[in-house]
């Protein structure tokens, strides 16, 4: 509590631009990851172990407002698997049985590439928090080939976010947003026990004249020899019909035209 009070006091003491409404800041940051509320995202995930590529996975993710996501596994070893997320409720479909299985939030976190990391692409619907302080933007570690340090230092807003709803992948996030445009730079991701689970680095690329987050690097604190690179190969505005987000509809191949 005292930490929160101190953060609030610091926020009051900060220049007006840094003490902006956190919800508005998060919405601005989200826009760098999702250009529209309803999208189809083609994702390629590379799992590195001890610096060497260990596994590669492909996913198609449909995102709709109301915290709805549908993940279709596309790699040969996982083809046919689907994960549906409706707010804090989750279902898994395995192709062997063709029966949607209700799973818990903890089960969603299992597996090599957490579907929560792949399907959760916004903060504003899931987190509240405070602007902790204004700092020099963190610089990626030198051993990350996918992320390079910018040529000159930048200033960042350091946000301390707590989950506003149940079922989110991480209970707390320390998020660094580039101060001028609110571009996500880095996030420290904490699980419910308070332990930091992962460190995320966001890699922007210019797309049609605008900066977009087109890759996310995840460094695992629990298994430090692992590094995950999530490439967003394409992000296309697409509003799949609501009935496709029905758990019983997972057994149908209805999304092939979407």
């Amino acid at each position, binding site marked *: 509590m005292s930490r929160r009070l101190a953060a609030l006091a610091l926020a009051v003491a900060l220049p007006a631009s840094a003490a902006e409404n956190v919800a508005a800041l998060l919405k601005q940051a989200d826009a760098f990851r999702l250009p529209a509320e309803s999208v189809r995202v083609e994702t390629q995930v590379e799992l590195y*172990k001890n610096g060497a590529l*260990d*596994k*590669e996975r492909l996913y198609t993710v449909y995102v709709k407002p109301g915290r709805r996501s549908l993940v279709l596994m*596309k*790699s*040969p*070893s996982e*083809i*046919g698997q689907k994960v549906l997320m*409706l707010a*804090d*409720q989750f279902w898994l479909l395995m*192709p*062997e*049985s*063709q*029966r949607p299985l*209700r*799973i*818990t*939030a*903890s*089960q969603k*976190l*299992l*597996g*090599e590439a*957490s579907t929560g990391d792949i399907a959760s692409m916004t903060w504003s619907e899931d987190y509240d928090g405070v602007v902790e302080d204004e700092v020099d933007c963190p610089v990626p570690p030198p051993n990350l080939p996918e992320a390079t340090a910018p040529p000159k230092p930048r200033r960042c807003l350091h946000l301390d976010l707590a989950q506003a709803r*149940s*079922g989110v992948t991480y209970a707390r996030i320390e998020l660094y947003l580039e101060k001028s445009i609110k571009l996500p730079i880095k996030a420290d991701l904490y*699980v*419910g*026990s308070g332990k930091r689970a992962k460190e995320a680095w966001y890699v922007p690329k210019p797309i049609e004249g605008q900066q977009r987050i087109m890759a996310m690097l995840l460094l695992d604190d*629990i*298994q430090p020899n*692992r590094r995950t690179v999530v490439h967003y190969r394409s992000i296309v505005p697409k509003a799949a*019909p*609501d*009935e*496709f*987000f*029905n*758990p*019983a*509809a997972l*057994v*149908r*191949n*209805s999304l*092939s*035209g979407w």
Partner: protein
Amino acid sequence: MVKRGAASCLLALALPAGAAEFNAALMVAPEVDTPNTASPYYVGPPLVPDRASRQDLELRLREGGFNVQETLRWQTIRDRTPEQHGIANQFYYDGELGDGLGWTAGKKLMSWGVGFGFKPLDVVQRENRRLVNRPALVGAPVLAVERFTADEAWTVAWTHPGRGEGSDDFRDASLALRWYRLSAGGDDLHAVARLSHRRGLEAGVGATRVIGEEWSIYGAALYERRTRRLMNMLVGNGGTLAAADPMSEQVGGGGTKAVAGAQWTGASGWSTLAEAWYDADAYSRAQWQRLDALTASQHALAGIAPAAAIAGNVAWSSQAYLTPNLLRENLLLRLGYDDRDGFRPYAELLATPRDGGRVWTIGAAFEGNRQRLALGLRQAGGADGSAYARAPIRRAAWAEWRLALF
């Protein structure tokens, strides 16, 4: 079967590759069984094969609403001629009639309901969840109409259309109805009904509730108008040896099947499951005792009756072990772990409290980029005289190596 499977494979290959999703996987699944030579139901090889291996090439194709899953299988069993055949696991089309309204025609997996070791509401697919080293399921021929909204779904399915009464429940023509609703409180609610030649009416309901981030509880119950179980007709008619297979399906009055369970999964990757179920189609303890007594009286004729006649009758009786549940009351406990790096070990205990039977299973799966290796060991035992302790196979060890080709 070979021709039809091969034709489906050719059709799959002939479709335009650019627009379709096409996947292939290779599987090798050997199994070694250790016979229980002390079992009164043991008659020795080749009636009880002890080594087998299944080699499958699985092909999947999706193009629009068109779906094909085919298996080309080469199976070897010790002391038998190897077999090759093709299997059309699924071959169906999912079409759309309008917003949220679809139809399906073809051969499709239709697995319904809740449960881990036993699924009473699985009235169409009737998957045996306790088989070791299970091959890929084969769907049922079906004509179905499905209605979906954001939180509700209806399915009306005519299975094995035009076939009439089948040789077993899966092959029996039926009209089946499934309803699903995601309640406002977040619970999964299920209801099924099925009308068939063999069972008459079956109707049941089920639900799953997630509690917090780590717990889920579930339950389901089904009423069936007619129970059916394979019984030895010599039991009760005073005979000891039969000249022809005396095992015949006995049709009884109404019965219930029910399951209830709870599952916990922690952030650490550990998980536990406890599940209890009741299956009215399975034997009671008294029915096993009567079959045991008949088998003992058959063995007592050694030296009096021809050995082949005794062995044949014992082999016929051992068909009682082919049912998914040996006794009506069952309890399953499971402990699992997921290291988030593709290693998933588990241990299971299945108990039949009425007779003290036990089945222990341990196993693990290792998943790489394109390969998956699963290993397992199952041991039957428990109290002397229990159905599992007297099973003709005491131990089974198996492996499955799967390589996703593309």
